[in-house]
């Protein structure tokens, strides 16, 4: 059998499953959404009706807050776990990944056990302050539940990305005088950017569509999946619930797409700044320096301006444009001398001579 038809044959089961369980139901859903009394205008109800709009904004804000806090917590934990080995590490990682197995309803119940009216926190605060603290049924309780099941989804991706980080870049920045915070801000976090976008997209989409936890906890608050559920089961408003479902999917997809394109645009813009920065320095001997707005700037940053060995340092050049020539000389000197070796930086005299040769002032 020729290779191409074999590949198509292998894709056939997946195609059938996708068609049967995703495409056909989605098509039916879209059709159902337009079958209500308002027809196609029912699709705008999510934006026009004040109650639906408030619910939508609530859901988007909650999902965004969950994503941001999840990324912060998971990055800190993931970087530590990936770079340190200690007894019990595997068990700790397993426990952090374990909440993936819990259905959302059970996460809701766990939050109730923790912070509900008979909950642990209420009991403790009652004994300590005489006042029972109950927040399971508020937006904060819902947020905690979402955080609990989002962290496992994000932390594994972040740990994999941290594993792939080039520690040579961090060493280069440190040796050029950057403080530890500057190393994180300018080298590590930008390098982790794609992992943030990818795992953040998953966390955001999951938080937007999470039903089980909201079902258990949201008595006073409305989130979009709950609204769809109540319209479907209580009011038998099939058309409205179908239209809301399609709206939920489209809005989640658009938010994720915007985040992705924003991240991509910021990265290419910084490369243009690097080229513009180099052009401004009189002793830069590179041969072409397009202006910052020039579309060729994106291409030049990698190949033409830098010698081949400097490719791996281009992120540093991107973030320190006005020092890019100093950086170029400093790093090029290191490469000329035979590349990075750990013993090179043990000798303070050697370090100083490298810095002096390129007249680098400490980057703070």
């Amino acid at each position, binding site marked *: 059998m020729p290779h191409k038809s074999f590949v198509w044959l292998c894709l056939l089961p997946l195609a059938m499953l996708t068609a049967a369980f995703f495409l056909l139901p989605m098509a039916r859903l879209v059709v159902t959404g337009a079958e209500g009394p308002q027809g196609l205008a029912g699709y705008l109800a999510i934006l026009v009706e004040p109650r639906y709009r408030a619910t939508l904004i609530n859901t988007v804000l909650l999902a965004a807050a969950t994503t941001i806090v999840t990324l912060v917590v998971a990055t800190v934990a993931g970087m530590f776990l990936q770079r340190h080995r200690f007894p019990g590490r595997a068990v700790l*990682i397993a426990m952090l*990944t374990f909440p*993936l*197995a819990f*259905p959302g309803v059970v996460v809701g119940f766990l939050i109730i*056990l923790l912070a509900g009216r008979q909950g642990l926190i209420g009991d403790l605060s009652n004994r300590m302050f005489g006042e029972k603290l109950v927040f399971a049924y508020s937006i904060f309780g819902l947020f905690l539940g979402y955080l609990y099941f989002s962290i496992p*989804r994000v932390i594994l991706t972040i740990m994999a990305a941290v594993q792939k980080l080039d520690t040579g870049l961090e060493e280069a920045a440190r040796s050029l005088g950057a403080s530890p915070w500057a190393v994180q801000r300018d080298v590590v976090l930008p390098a982790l950017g794609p992992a943030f976008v990818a795992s953040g997209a998953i966390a955001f989409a999951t938080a937007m569509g999470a039903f089980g936890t909201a079902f258990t906890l949201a008595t006073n608050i409305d989130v979009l999946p709950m609204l769809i559920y109540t319209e479907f089961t209580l009011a038998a408003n099939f058309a409205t619930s179908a239209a809301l479902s399609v709206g939920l999917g489209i809005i989640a997809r658009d938010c994720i797409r915007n985040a992705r394109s924003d991240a991509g645009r910021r990265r290419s813009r910084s490369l243009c700044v690097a080229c513009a920065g180099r052009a401004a320095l009189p002793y830069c001997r590179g041969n072409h320096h397009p202006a910052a707005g020039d579309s060729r700037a994106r291409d030049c940053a990698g190949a033409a301006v830098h010698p081949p060995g400097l490719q791996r340092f281009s992120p540093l050049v991107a973030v320190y444009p006005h020092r890019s020539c100093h950086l170029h000389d400093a790093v090029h000197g290191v490469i000329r001398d035979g590349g990075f070796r750990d013993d090179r930086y043990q000798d303070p005299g050697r370090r100083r001579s490298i810095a002096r040769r390129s007249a680098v002032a400490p980057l703070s």
Partner: protein
Amino acid sequence: MVVTLSLGEFNLTWMLHTPLTKTLPIGLADSYASMRLEVASAYTLIFFVMIIPLLVAMQMFADQEQKR
């Protein structure tokens, strides 16, 4: 991730399950909802015992691969 997510699959099962095809998450949710907390704790413990060794084993496997 696939293993843990399949073990915890709830929404679809809740809609389609029968007493003959009850899964672990359904049992868990049922016992929490009816406030039989001792049964709920037992179910949660079963979850733990099933999944944690699996995840630990996967971690160790990944570490071994990395060392090689």
